[in-house]
């Protein structure tokens, strides 16, 4: 698999590190990792970087993850960049909202590296 450029969006720096480690444990080679601590920062990062994958929390200050997905969907630079939500919000209603807004996958915290692999590889066009 080619190395990918990923944007990780979470208000917890510890969680961003864990998500990056989980991607590596899932066998996903990372060329570049960009971090953002809320949706607004993520929109800026999205416009400043060429990306292959976005992993995004929902509950964040300033701009939450669902709003970020809705705003990202309006941007030309985000076309074709899969967004996978990774969040403690586990309700079906949240899943539906996220997928309707344009997210391609949904991972509930707490999560294992295997779950990251299972949900991320398909959106990158790979078999888990």
């Amino acid at each position, binding site marked *: 698999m080619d190395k990918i450029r990923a944007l990780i969006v979470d208000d917890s720096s510890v969680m961003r590190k864990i998500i990056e*480690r989980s991607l590596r444990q899932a066998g996903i080679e990372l060329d570049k990792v960009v971090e953002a601590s809320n949706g607004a920062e993520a929109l800026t990062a999205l416009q400043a970087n060429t990306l292959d994958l976005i992993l995004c929390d929902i*509950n964040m200050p300033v701009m939450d993850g669902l709003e970020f997905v809705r705003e990202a969907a309006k941007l030309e630079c985000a076309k074709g960049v899969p967004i996978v939500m990774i969040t403690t919000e586990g*309700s*079906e209603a949240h899943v539906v909202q996220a997928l309707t807004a344009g997210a391609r996958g949904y991972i509930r915290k*707490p999560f294992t590296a295997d779950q990251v692999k299972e949900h991320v590889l398909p959106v990158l066009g790979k078999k888990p």
Partner: protein
Amino acid sequence: MSTDTSFVTRSKEENWLPVLELAVEEVFEIMLGCRVKPVAPAEHTPNGEFTAMIGLAGALCGILTVCCSATTAGQIAKSMLGDAAKSADEVGDALGEVCNMIAGNFKNKLAGTDERCMLSVPSVVSGGEYSLHSLAAGNAVETVLLFEGAPVAVRLQLQS
């Protein structure tokens, strides 16, 4: 958003302690690689140098706290990161995320809460010289577990 009275009633009629214990055990096992079991709270009171808290609003209204010593908070951060935390902020961040995941995991296990229960972003208090007075002073469930031999208290205080 007003509190859903049916959940207030359920919190009084149902025993939510096993649900909270399971939510805690899963977070520690999956995210910290550590199997933990509840111990008698009366015999294991943590030194509350670090307290992470998260608010619940909507169908469930209250506050969930995770309390432990500074040393234990550092060990939790190390287990999550795979390396020692670089600062007290990072230790607090890790404990806040544990609190966040326990609260989310707990509410996801209660049938019917779905999107009607919202979580705040977590906050962390460091230093033991404080008192916590929650306006959600109703039913409470608490579990204490041993992590690396030291107690960690997880308390859910619900609005009556």
